[in-house]
């Protein structure tokens, strides 16, 4: 075990624990806050794995925007403080499916990599320069397509969430 391993293990444990709280807690807003912890710790793992830019993007987009949006939606849909009892379906099938997927994938990956070792010294850190070069040389077209996708999503979200034109007038 190297220092990196220890850090990954520790942050990973935090992340996994928080993730389990996200899917098991009975309090909706708490689930959102645990998601912040889980994704934040995941950003820490990225940082340890030299993916600097990705880590901060994760904090900026996920913690700063996505989770806030979710908490916002939870509060707008009148989440109660305290426990709600009707959040879950029957647990057993879900445990079977989720546990099967998780443990199965883990087994496959563990079998593929065993206890192989990779030195981090030769790895060029994934900073803004490296990722920028990567995205804008090899993946420029997908990048553009993505921006179109974002625009479409933006327009779609606005179109869905605005009240029907004219309807609001008549009501008030």
């Amino acid at each position, binding site marked *: 075990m190297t220092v990196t391993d220890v850090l990954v293990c520790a942050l990973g444990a935090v992340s996994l624990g928080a993730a389990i709280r996200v899917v098991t807690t009975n*309090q909706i*807003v*708490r689930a959102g*806050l645990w998601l*912040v912890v889980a994704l934040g710790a995941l950003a820490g793992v990225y940082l340890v794995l030299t993916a*600097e*830019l990705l880590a*901060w*993007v994760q*904090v*900026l987009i996920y*913690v*700063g*925007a996505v*989770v*806030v*949006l979710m*908490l*916002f939606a939870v*509060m*707008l849909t009148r989440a109660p*403080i*305290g426990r709600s009892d009707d959040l879950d379906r029957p647990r057993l099938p879900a445990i079977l499916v989720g546990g099967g997927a998780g443990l199965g994938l883990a087994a496959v990956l563990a079998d593929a990599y065993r206890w192989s070792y990779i030195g981090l010294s030769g790895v060029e850190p994934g*900073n*803004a320069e490296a990722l920028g070069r990567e995205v804008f040389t090899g993946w420029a077209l997908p990048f553009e397509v993505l921006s179109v996708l974002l625009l479409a999503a933006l327009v779609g979200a606005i179109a869905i969430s605005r009240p029907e034109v004219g309807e609001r007038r008549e009501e008030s």
Partner: protein
Amino acid sequence: MPVWLEIAIRVAGVFVAFLTLPLIVGQTEHKVMAHMQGRLGPMYAGRFHGWAQLIADGVKFVQKEEVVPGAADKSVFRLAPAVALVPYLVALLVIPLGPGDLVAQPLDMGLFLVLAVVGVGIVAVLMAGWASANKYTLLGALRAAAQLLAYELPFVLAAASVAMAAGTLSLTGIVEAWRPWWLLWQLPALFVFFTAGLAEIRRPPFDAPIADSELVFGYLTEYTGLRFALFLLAEYVGIVVISALTTVLFLGGWKGPFASDTLGWLWTLVKVGAVAFVIIWLRVAFPRLRVDQLQKFCWLGLVPIALLQLILTAVVKVGF
């Protein structure tokens, strides 16, 4: 010097700045605001012009009873002030004070880190507002979330403009690349960044989430004693961080008309102080924006300006 000692000294320095600068800003606010309104402000604590007023306030806050509402989500309620403080502390770590090594933690992606962690502050506001189990705090938190999500966009875009101009994301690198004529060229970005920064720290005139005439005290309504003091501290650290960022990104950081290399840290502090003064000044001079005006100002005012500035920066950068 051993590495751990150096790190300890740097962290201690940031901690000292974290504890003293907000107090200085707060005291200045007391006095400047009072004089702008034809008053004197605190005059007694500490004999000379009430310089120890905030320390006295701190002692008072510590002595106060800690009230947690019965219906509140208690652990979230208790955790919120800490979550509000930590992002600003992290942001202070990477802001350079002077040339060379005068920064707690020089980072390649300092700008990006600052933008990312400043955005985390919203979570604290949502936690505080929701966990208080009070309709006013909830309304305040929802207003704050809507405001912060909206203003994050021009905030980041304006910062992106200057990063594009400097060709780096490192805060030290940006100051090094900075030239006096950038003041003119990046003026719209400066305006957008400063205004959006004000909204990010929810200072007047963008304090609709607190709005004491409508929402009692917004998301802070239920807080008392030390936790309330921590939220106040977060507000003043926020002023320091936004002033320091504006200074570093747009006003040339440690560069001054003379002695930039030896007295650079002084230039930075002077500029930060000046920007902080403007923040206080705006609080006194301007009335609070209504919520709809606030959103309109962001989406129809700041975002287009920021986008145009980005185009301008790109054109100048590619053209010359």
